[in-house]
């Protein structure tokens, strides 16, 4: 690992559903469970609202990781089955990302309930660690190296 990578602080964008994952993230706060400040959360009502284009746009704009989090399978979804849609969309997108040379691990799908503040914090901690191992989003490197027009 290079010096630059050791000091590298990943930027993670989180897309969280309002009812479970976002509530779980709130609970982490209420319970004062500490986690690294690398994540920025965008609230959507349902994980079924998370468009693959949002994830691509985040990666393009330099996100080193993207967290998609919704209600637990199979039946926690406040909207019944939005989480299934999210699951299939993200899995298919990850397949595409792999072909496009982006580590699929940068995009992480997690199910976090409203009572899992600790899990949310653990997911963020783990994700930061994993992405530190992966290094910065290669799209950022490309931009500076000129391969990307």
């Amino acid at each position: 690992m290079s010096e630059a990578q050791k000091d590298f602080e990943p930027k993670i964008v989180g897309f969280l559903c309002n009812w479970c994952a976002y509530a779980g993230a709130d609970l982490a706060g209420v319970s004062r469970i500490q986690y690294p400040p690398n994540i920025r959360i965008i609230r959507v009502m349902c994980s079924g609202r998370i468009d693959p284009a949002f994830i691509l746009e985040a990666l393009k704009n330099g996100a080193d990781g993207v967290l998609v989090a919704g209600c637990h399978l199979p039946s926690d979804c406040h909207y019944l089955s939005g989480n299934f849609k999210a699951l299939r969309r993200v899995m298919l997108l990850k397949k595409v990302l792999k072909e496009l040379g982006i580590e699929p691990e940068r995009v992480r799908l997690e199910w976090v309930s409203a009572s899992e503040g600790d899990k949310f914090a653990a997911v963020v901690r783990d994700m930061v660690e994993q992405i530190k191992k992966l290094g910065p989003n290669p799209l950022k490197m490309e931009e500076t190296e000129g391969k990307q027009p």
Partner: protein
Amino acid sequence: MTKQKLKFAFYWAASCGGCEIAVLDINEKILDVIQIADIVFWPVAMDIKYKDVEAMPDKYIDVCFFNGGIRNSEQEHMAKLLRQKSKILVAYGACAHLGGVPGLANLHDKKEIFEKVYGQTFSTVNPNNVFPQPKVHVKEGELEIPEFYDTVRTLDQTVDVDYYVPGCPPAVERTLFALEAIAKGDLPPKGSVLAPLKSVCDECPKKKENKKISRIYRVYEKVPDPEKCLLEQGILCMGPATRGGCGARCLKADMPCTGCGGPCPNTPEQGAAMISALASILGLEEEKEKYTEEEVEKLIEQIKDPVGTFYMYGLPASILRRKVIRE
């Protein structure tokens, strides 16, 4: 009163040449074009040099139809030159519009492409590993060929584009629509794609009933019911996410749409739109409580060559534009 004739130019960059033919697909209507316009530059049909174009005053050309993407320095130079010399620059056809099929080369970079083409194909004998160089010194002096880029770009990633005529190649009605609008001086706002707003589905005559699929077939694996929506029969059709205006010509021949019309006007990206749509309906029938992540994995595995499916024409125009290749 005789109106002054318009000056047209046609140019061919990184494309197959089909778009050049497509211009002629308008058949006898080409005579009408001649009535209203003089063609001042058309390398495939006329003997004219780049320096003649360079000599033209700026904005001398009224409309330049530019087909093909930008993959080398010559194409980039000509794009810039024609932009300078033209009042209206039209990205004509999928390659100029979206990068097109040559844009799939963005799954590789220059090094990989050269190694394959000049080194690893069966018919190639290149024991000294000689690869094309932009500049070569020979005893007569320095030879220069265009520089090959790592990445194919669309025309509008290179220069400002006024209009787009989609299609691979553009359907006759799209070309006519563009020509008529130009002739009448009745053009929509700059930046418009000269095509209807709706997707191919709107023009597709096949019956749409129930979009819940769980089994995916490649075209050769199934003889579809010609009356029914191909996607509903498990054949991947990009029609829902592809801007129409082609008259659903492929579907009328019972072949699925592959997406040459590009994204619909509201979509951030055609590929992502289809990924989202397809993933949404895939396995919908049995969704309730049945799927485990492993089972979903199996469903998804049915989709072979996802980039080739979702980005056959649009990889350079997509959000990520190309594959990341690390040394």
